């Protein structure tokens, strides 16, 4: 760690991991509700558990991105963070606001929460992933602006590299597109259309810039490969991400009352969306093979390679599976979507944050890398979580194929709930995989506390 203010990342990462645990606990709760419909009913109905599950994911990934930026930006800019105090204050504001929002979901009925937070003044609640009370959304904007000001000033007054500029662009885009969450017209088609300007342009747009720059940074650090080479890859990957992903938004405009041409545009451009992820995989393996040093942090190298592969599988391959309009006609809004969502989020965004944590946490704790025993456990947790997620994805895909056939494709389509009963075996197995994922997460956390032989520095 070259600059003291990089250490601020630590509190962000600890909060991120804590919220991650909460996310998975609610995930396994929902998994059980899929097969035991009355589990925790009416105290925690499915919709509440889901809201907590998805919102915790978003919040902890944002903590992860912010922590990563606070670690990376000073080192790349070759100066201390513009305002470490501001970063610490914003941490507590964001954590308290996030915690209060989640408690609000759990402790009072959602309609009451809307009333308490005066949703009527500017109604923004009750849309998928954007369930936060309007006041929380305003808080998110304030925290995001303060954060961008802080790292923006650091970059602008320091060394500008391709990595910190791309990261900054991604983070500014994240804040800008979030503003669409305040637009909630009565017209349902317009509402849905612009809702995707937050959701799609985040996860299939600007977040890819964040992800690629974080990955590029870690790869420079652990491989020692020349920055020029890595920056060229970075440019071409994010170029392909935006060239395919911007008009690729159209794959969400097939069946919501929007013009028919989106079926062509959405299909063609989103069919190109796997390309940047495939390039990321090539990139990661290429630079690791050409490495000029064997970094003692083997776990971080594994996470980096794993991110590239799993993002390609989850976002690229599983996205492509159902992105062509004639296929999506049958699969839209089924368990196929759930399968893709799980592996894409895990592979691209969860794993890239864990890559950053894996690389930077030992450095913030005054070590080159975690000790050998700890790394072994971390590597085991990598495989436990990743293989569990593969299992979840395959099982949901199986459930989805069967659902599509029974409910949408067969000569005699069955009602939704009848079909759900037929899928119980898939859901039970998915629940088992969910629990092994949780075990993997506990192993991961435990790896931070394991004592053992310090790693040899082989530089």
């Amino acid at each position, binding site marked *: 760690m070259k600059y003291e203010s990089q250490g601020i990342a630590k509190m962000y990462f600890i909060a991120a991991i804590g919220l991650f645990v909460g996310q998975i606990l609610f995930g396994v709760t*929902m998994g059980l*509700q899929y097969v035991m*419909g*009355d589990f925790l*009913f*009416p105290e925690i*109905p*499915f*919709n*509440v558990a*889901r*809201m907590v599950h998805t919102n915790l994911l978003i919040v902890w990934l944002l903590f992860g991105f912010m922590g990563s930026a606070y670690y990376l930006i000073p080192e790349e800019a070759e100066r201390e963070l513009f305002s470490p105090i501001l970063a610490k204050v914003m941490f507590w504001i964001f954590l308290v606001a996030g915690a209060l929002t989640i408690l609000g979901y759990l402790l009072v009925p*959602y*309609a009451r929460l*809307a*009333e308490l937070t005066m949703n*009527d003044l500017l*109604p923004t609640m*009750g849309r*998928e992933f954007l*369930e936060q009370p309007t006041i929380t959304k305003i808080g998110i904007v304030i925290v995001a602006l303060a954060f961008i000001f802080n790292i923006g000033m650091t970059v602008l007054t320091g060394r500008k590299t*391709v990595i910190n500029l791309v990261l900054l662009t991604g983070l500014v885009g994240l804040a800008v597109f979030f503003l669409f969450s305040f637009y*909630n017209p*009565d*017209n*349902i*088609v*317009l509402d*849905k*259309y612009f809702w995707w300007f937050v959701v799609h342009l985040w996860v299939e747009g600007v977040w890819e810039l964040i992800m690629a720059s974080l990955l590029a940074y870690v790869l420079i650090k652990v491989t020692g490969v020349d920055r*020029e080479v890595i920056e*060229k890859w970075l*440019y*071409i990957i*994010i*170029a392909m991400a*935006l*060239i395919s992903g*911007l*008009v690729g938004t159209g794959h969400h*405009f097939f*069946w*919501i*009352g*929007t*013009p*028919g041409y*989106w*079926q062509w*545009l959405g299909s063609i451009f989103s069919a190109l969306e796997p390309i940047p992820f495939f390039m990321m995989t090539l990139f990661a393996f290429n630079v690791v093979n050409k490495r000029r040093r064997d970094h003692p942090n083997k776990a971080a190298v594994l996470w980096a390679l794993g991110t590239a592969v799993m993002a390609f599988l989850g976002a690229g391959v599983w996205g492509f599976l159902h992105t062509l309009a004639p296929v999506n006609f049958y699969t839209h*809004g*089924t*368990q196929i979507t*759930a399968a893709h969502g799980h592996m894409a989020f895990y592979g691209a965004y969860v794993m890239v944050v864990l890559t950053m944590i894996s690389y930077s946490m030992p450095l913030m704790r005054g070590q080159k890398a975690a000790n050998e025993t700890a790394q072994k456990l971390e590597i085991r947790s990598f495989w436990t979580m990743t293989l569990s997620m593969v299992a979840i994805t395959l099982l949901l895909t199986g459930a989805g194929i069967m659902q599509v056939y029974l409910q*949408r494709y067969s000569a005699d*389509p069955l*009602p*939704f*709930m009848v079909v*759900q009963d037929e899928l119980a075996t898939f859901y039970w197995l998915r629940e088992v995989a969910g629990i092994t994922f949780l075990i993997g997460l506990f192993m991961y956390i435990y790896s931070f506390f394991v004592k053992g032989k310090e790693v040899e520095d082989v530089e």
Partner: protein
Amino acid sequence: MRETFTKGMARNIYYGGSVFFFLVLIGLTVDTVKRLPATDNSENLTEQVAEGKRVWEVNNCIGCHTLLGEGAYFAPELGNVYTRFGESTEAIKAFIKYRPVEGIEDRRSMPQFNLTDEELEAVAQFLKYVDGVKTARDWPPNIQG
């Protein structure tokens, strides 16, 4: 990558490509918004429907159901529920109104939201309005949603 392909070229593809396709997206958005009145059923978008959308939102219906395929996959699609319930807003209202407070043993059950008669009517009208949106190929594929 080959030496002939320089970082400068990669950078230009990034800037040029992203600006160009961002402008394309904006252009298509303008065109889409202009064309929407032909399909979006806005002629039936009354005050009551708008109120129904609020009821839909503040009870987090999207947390279990899909609406035109978007939402959660735990409970049935509601974009065509008006058709599925025999084009009866009364049937929709009755279904929501008589959900057991304690749920149904071993089964998924919709919570009892204690909606007023006015709210029930509004949300039923909202679902009728959404059913009237002209989706491409008349999605969903069949009445089961």
